């Protein structure tokens, strides 16, 4: 154990002496957290909507006014043609193009049925579906008024079933509450995996491992001495990130912070083990960077950080079972937003413990002091 302490002392000396690495460890993740949260904001505002009002009736104007009153839409009205609207959509001058056909009001009056045509820019699917959702709700609201006005019905025939949504654990559907914890999970993973793998490979690259391998230092002492510093640093970053999240984004902290750190403490051995494994199969820092990057991109995209795992096809969901990042993203959200207890995340705990044991076992087996 004394030897491990000596290793730790040396590692911390080197880490804090490395003027290139220090900012990457401490400044970059914090800046990323503060900036990326805004970048990952999925709320849609200021949708540019062009309306071709061919009907020109009081009904169509009322509908347009309702779009205009919504803070989500910026409406421009044109009485010209279909081609002009499509050209604007093509040129990116508008996000959506709504056409109100001639006789819209008449149709409604006669048959209680009218059609509208909505063209959307579907390049960004998520954006388009949100715009559709907003449009539908505006049109739905307008319908009730229409029925009253056109048919003189006092008691508006409200739709028989009305679902009133309430978003639990994140009442305002505030994306920041979802993104800050998720991003924190990813950033902590990144530091653990990248830096630990690069740190070991560096010794290979500059040849110091030759000298170390001919000493009585044991494999586990060397590895522990290499990984522990990044375990401490990652936990420290998690603490800083949580504090910043609370301070700047007012994220809720419903559950036990201690529980979260206990989970993170175990989870980090998965990321450090990954780093160790990558370092055993690479000879240069460049190789280890590429490998870490490869795994990290897959892990993050499948982690459920940006797209809910439940929306993925079944085969992709199966892959996410093997994605350690997904467990941490889930747990950090569960504990912070939902206030889950240790019992609630026991399954996650178990899986992460198994994962850590497996990956570290594999990495240690693969780590050779001689060839």
């Amino acid at each position, binding site marked *: 154990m004394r030897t491990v302490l*000596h290793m730790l002392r040396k590692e911390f000396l080197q880490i804090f*002496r490395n003027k290139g690495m220090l900012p990457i460890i401490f400044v970059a993740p914090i800046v990323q957290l503060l900036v990326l949260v805004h970048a990952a904001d999925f709320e849609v505002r200021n949708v540019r909507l062009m309306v071709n009002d061919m009907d020109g009736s009081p009904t169509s104007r009322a509908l347009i006014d309702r779009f205009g009153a919504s803070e989500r839409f910026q409406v421009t009205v044109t009485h010209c043609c279909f081609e002009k609207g499509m050209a604007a959509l093509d040129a990116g001058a508008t996000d959506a193009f709504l056409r109100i056909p001639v006789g819209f009001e008449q149709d409604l009056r006669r048959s209680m049925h009218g059609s509208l045509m909505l063209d959307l820019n579907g390049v960004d699917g998520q954006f388009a579906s949100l715009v559709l959702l907003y449009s539908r709700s505006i049109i739905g609201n307008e319908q009730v008024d229409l029925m009253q006005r056109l048919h003189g019905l006092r008691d508006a025939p409200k739709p028989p079933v009305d679902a009133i949504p309430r978003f639990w654990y994140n009442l305002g559907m505030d994306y920041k509450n979802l993104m800050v914890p998720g991003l924190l999970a990813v950033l902590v993973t990144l530091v653990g995996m990248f830096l630990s793998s690069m740190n070991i490979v560096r010794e290979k690259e500059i040849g110091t491992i030759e000298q170390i391998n001919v000493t009585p230092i044991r494999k586990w002492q060397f590895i522990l001495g290499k990984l522990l510093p990044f375990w401490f640093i990652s936990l420290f970053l998690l603490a800083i990130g949580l504090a910043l999240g609370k301070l700047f984004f007012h994220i809720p902290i419903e559950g036990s912070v201690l529980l979260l750190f206990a989970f993170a403490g175990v989870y980090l051995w998965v990321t450090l083990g990954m780093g160790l494994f990558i370092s055993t199969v690479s000879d240069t820092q460049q190789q280890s960077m590429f490998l870490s990057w490869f795994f990290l991109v897959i892990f993050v995209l499948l982690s459920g950080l940006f797209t809910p795992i439940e929306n993925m096809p079944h085969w992709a969901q199966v892959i996410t079972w093997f994605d350690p990042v997904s467990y941490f993203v889930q747990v950090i959200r569960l504990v912070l937003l939902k206030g889950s207890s240790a019992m609630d995340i026991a399954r996650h705990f178990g899986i992460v413990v198994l994962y850590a044991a497996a990956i570290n076992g594999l990495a240690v087996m693969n780590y050779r002091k*001689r060839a």
Partner: protein
Amino acid sequence: MIAIEGISKRYDEVQALRDVSIDVPEGELFGLIGPDGAGKTTLFRLLVTLLLPDTGRMTFDGRDVVTDYRYVRRHVGYMPGSFSLYQDLSVRENLEFFASVFQTTVEANYDLIKDIYVMLEPFAERRAGALSGGMKQKLALSCALIHKPKVLVLDEPTTGVDAVSRREFWAMLRKLKDEGITILVSTPYMDEAAQCDRVGLIQDGQLLRTGDPATIAQAFDRPLYAATGEDAYRLLQALRQREDVEEVHPFGTALHVTARSDMDPDNVQRQLREQGFTGAHLAPIRPGIEDLFMRLMR
């Protein structure tokens, strides 16, 4: 102290060592001499437990190197061919770290490294990466010595070091040998052979010969002459065309001529002068290790 018996090692494409056997008794300064790529580094890396041999057996202080590798790692001081200390740690930090890895302290073994360390002392707080080549080499030697090893294995310690530092370094090695440390050192420089108690000549993974550096060259079994004259290049060609000359190699300013048994040096000298090499001169010389090497390498 060290017994190497019939060691072979093959990398994917290259047979790095072929059936090499060396015995180094306790307290000897043994020099392994050979050109780049001869297999010196491979042999040393096998000996210090960094590689496993394909065939053969090595013992270190009577213990098997492969099975009892922990003993070897505790008692060997190894200095790899390239500088392998932490460039971002200071001289003192490096020394303290390696001492702690061997579960000892700098103070406990200070007497052994004292002579070397006093030269480093003024730079104790300087980063190892900022040291000059000669100083780096002294630090590396100090770190290899910090645990009082029984055997010191030095892979080309004098490569890329200036002449003065080289001489100093050999003086340090002789002192360490007097302390009773067995030393194995490799070098591509033939002129350093004289500094060793015994040398082994290695080429293409094969140990060509071992012996006393003063007498090993006697194995050179042909008369040898040094030829000098103007226009050395044409002289070399003229000599190579002769029937009674076996080999000619340029050595510094002279040409070393290996004669066939029927060669008469006076005759050769006369004929050369008749060919227009007016200053041509042939004199018998004693073969050196380099001459032997050239001959063994054929």
